[in-house]
């Protein structure tokens, strides 16, 4: 069972590296944010897998909750930030 969780964790890491391509090469800023959000969701699952590997799930659950929360706030905040910045930018040009 340990080997299985290790394999799943490594596969998740690989998928995160693939998502990182979208963060680095995304044509628009929102593509990059989307890539970041996707990586954050995978990290929540990965943290719990690490907890299972260390036989200490009770501790890693708290970290995973905090991470899921901050991922949500970061996405919401950056979406709103770029919306705000962009609308100021549009008003200047009109």
């Amino acid at each position, binding site marked *: 069972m340990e080997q299985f969780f290790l394999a799943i964790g490594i596969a998740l890491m690989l998928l995160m590296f693939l998502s990182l391509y979208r963060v680095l090469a995304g*044509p628009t800023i929102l593509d990059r*944010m*989307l890539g970041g959000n996707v990586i954050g969701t995978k990290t*929540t*699952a990965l943290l719990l897998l690490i907890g299972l590997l260390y036989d200490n*799930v009770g501790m890693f659950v708290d970290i995973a909750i905090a991470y899921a929360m901050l991922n*949500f706030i970061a996405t919401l905040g950056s*979406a709103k930030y*770029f919306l705000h910045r962009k609308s100021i930018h549009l008003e200047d040009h009109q």
Partner: protein
Amino acid sequence: MILNIVSIVLICAGLFFFAVGTLGILRFPDFYTRVQAAGKCDSLAAVLVLVGIAVYNLGDLSLATVLVSIKILFIAAFVFISSPTATHAITDAALLIGVKPWTKEKNTP
């Protein structure tokens, strides 16, 4: 033993949908279609993996492990509410900023 098999099936299904979501955000042609892949596949995959881990955690039954499993289900519920909301926020921002959607008429000769 049955719990282990159930959790292996759930986690493998979750990993499959994670892979599909990642492939989706790499292959789709524009931002709005990428949001589809990320918003749907990722939230379902995260919920499946988390439920799988919660089921595996019930292997040695005691009060502490049951509570930890319920906490993991709380994370799943949180992801279930927050993931569509984040998707909605990004899509809304994209439409208001004016990111051009990919359409079939424009791109097929």
